[in-house]
């Protein structure tokens, strides 16, 4: 693999990890609310969250560009106030990955919270621990396996993200060319897709490693600790 390829691998990792970190807090919150609360506008939130799942990633990327691009409302605000830009930057790639993988993460986290026995939460409250602390000390740790699974899922999805990334971050070598963009670009050159194989294998092994890490973490948790 060329140094450019190695750069793509490093960048993909950086982007995917950032994407997970960006989305995690709100995904945990939304996942918890969707799992444990009943309220009026619930289906609306659910739909919003699922939007990036049903839209072609290119369209998602386009919407992000409209919003976060240098002329977009958020983008120009950030640029003027903090001299900070997201589009055409690795941060843009991270944002794209975060948005596209968000529904997967929320879903995983939501189902993790759903399977935490509400009676345990009641028990905690009856010991004088308020709802928020109960969330922190009971619901969150008990859902941690599912949250972890959600992160890994989002990570894997980010590693493979193409459509939205090329829209908002562009395919700029040494800046925003993640593994999928590099594969695509290789496919467009004379050697063709064959020269892309090392990168394809790299993508696969990254996700394998993340999965295996996840398994190990999970196995060390309370859930699978048998006999």
């Amino acid at each position, binding site marked *: 693999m060329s140094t450019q390829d190695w750069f793509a691998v490093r960048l993909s990792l950086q982007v995917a990890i950032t994407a997970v970190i960006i989305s995690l807090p709100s995904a945990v919150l939304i996942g918890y609310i969707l799992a444990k609360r009943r309220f009026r506008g619930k289906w609306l939130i659910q739909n919003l969250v699922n939007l990036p799942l049903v839209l072609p990633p290119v369209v998602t990327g386009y919407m992000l560009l409209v919003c976060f691009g240098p002329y977009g409302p958020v983008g120009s605000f950030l640029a003027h106030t903090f001299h900070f830009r997201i589009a055409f930057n690795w941060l843009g790639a991270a944002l794209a990955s975060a948005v596209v993988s968000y529904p997967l993460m929320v879903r995983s986290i939501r189902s993790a919270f759903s399977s935490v*026995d509400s*009676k*345990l939460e*009641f*028990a*905690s*409250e*009856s*010991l*004088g*621990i*308020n*709802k928020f602390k*109960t969330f922190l*000390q*009971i619901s969150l*740790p*008990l859902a941690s396996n599912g949250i972890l699974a959600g992160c890994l899922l989002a990570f894997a999805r980010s590693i493979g993200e193409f459509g939205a990334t090329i829209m908002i971050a562009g395919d700029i070598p040494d800046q925003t060319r993640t593994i999928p963009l590099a594969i695509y670009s290789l496919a467009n050159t004379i050697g063709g897709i064959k020269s892309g194989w090392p990168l394809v294998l790299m993508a696969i092994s990254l996700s394998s490693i993340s999965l295996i890490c996840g398994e190990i973490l999970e196995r060390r*948790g*309370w859930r699978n*600790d048998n006999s």
Partner: protein
Amino acid sequence: MTILEVDLCHQFKSGFELDIHFKIKNQITSIFGASGSGKTSITSMIAGLTKPNHGKVILNKRTLFDSYSHIDVPISQRKIGIIFQNHLLFPHLDVKSNLQYGIRRFSRHQSSTDLLRVCEVLEISHLLKRYPKHLSGGECQRVAIGRTLLSSPEALLMDEPLASLDDRLKDSILNYFDRILEEWQIPTIFISHNQSLVQRFSSHTIVVDHGKVLSTGLTADIIENHGPDIWKSAKGPINLLDIDSLEQDGESSYALICGQKIQLPSINQASNQKMYIQFSASDVVLSSNIIVNISTRNHLLGVVRRIVEQNSNILVAIDVGTIIWSKITMGAQKDLQLKIGCQIYCMIKTQSLEIVI
């Protein structure tokens, strides 16, 4: 004086209707009733886990729930400790963290429930590093008890807290409860199917049946008036008598029960804790005069107060200073010509007596 006032109406989808009203002071009150009569539902509504259709729950003048003025204090602020029928330990915390989870959350009580003491009494000191899934049924139950006690609540609800424990543990835990509750002076609700536990542990009893309060009052009165209806076991109601004082004479021990002497089975460890003797109604033989040449050692003289016929058997309440129930056949009643007011001897084999601390 701490008071828990409960007023609940609820209609379950299954058709079961709960309609419960009672007040208890800082005392231990049993709720007694058949399986499915609504005991667990009552406690879960007091604690705030289930919301009743209508009603009111007031603890120490704090309104915890009132359907009319839409008050519904969050569970965590009710300061009510619950020991659940099915433990509900936190699976991701070890025993020690489980115990410490709600420690001193409610600040009123400052002593006699530190972690060490609780672990010692409940015999769980060796389990502190374990996780709940590696505990036996009884061990889980004990940890759950400890966890709730350590949170020093302002009222305590216990749903069969001792169901799967053996007698020795039951006794020592009950004594500990007794002492803590004596000190804390908080209203305590105790649910158990074990008649002798109810009798020993609770001063007051509320009898529920099909979701309604059947009767309520001092445990002793309830037993006198409703004993035969409530405890329908083959051996009749269980008699539980306070021992006034203890006397050792050679190899035998004697107790004074309302002024009358009674021989006890040999006790190994003499203790200076409060003791009771316990025997079932079917163990009580009645005779109109003192009989010699018989292995039965104890003859308590008393007056017949009530005669109840139940399933072709006769239950007789004899006042020997306290009430003793005896279960005899109809033939025996005829032979002895038992009538209310007549004097009679209650003969109880020493071997039938069980000593309870």
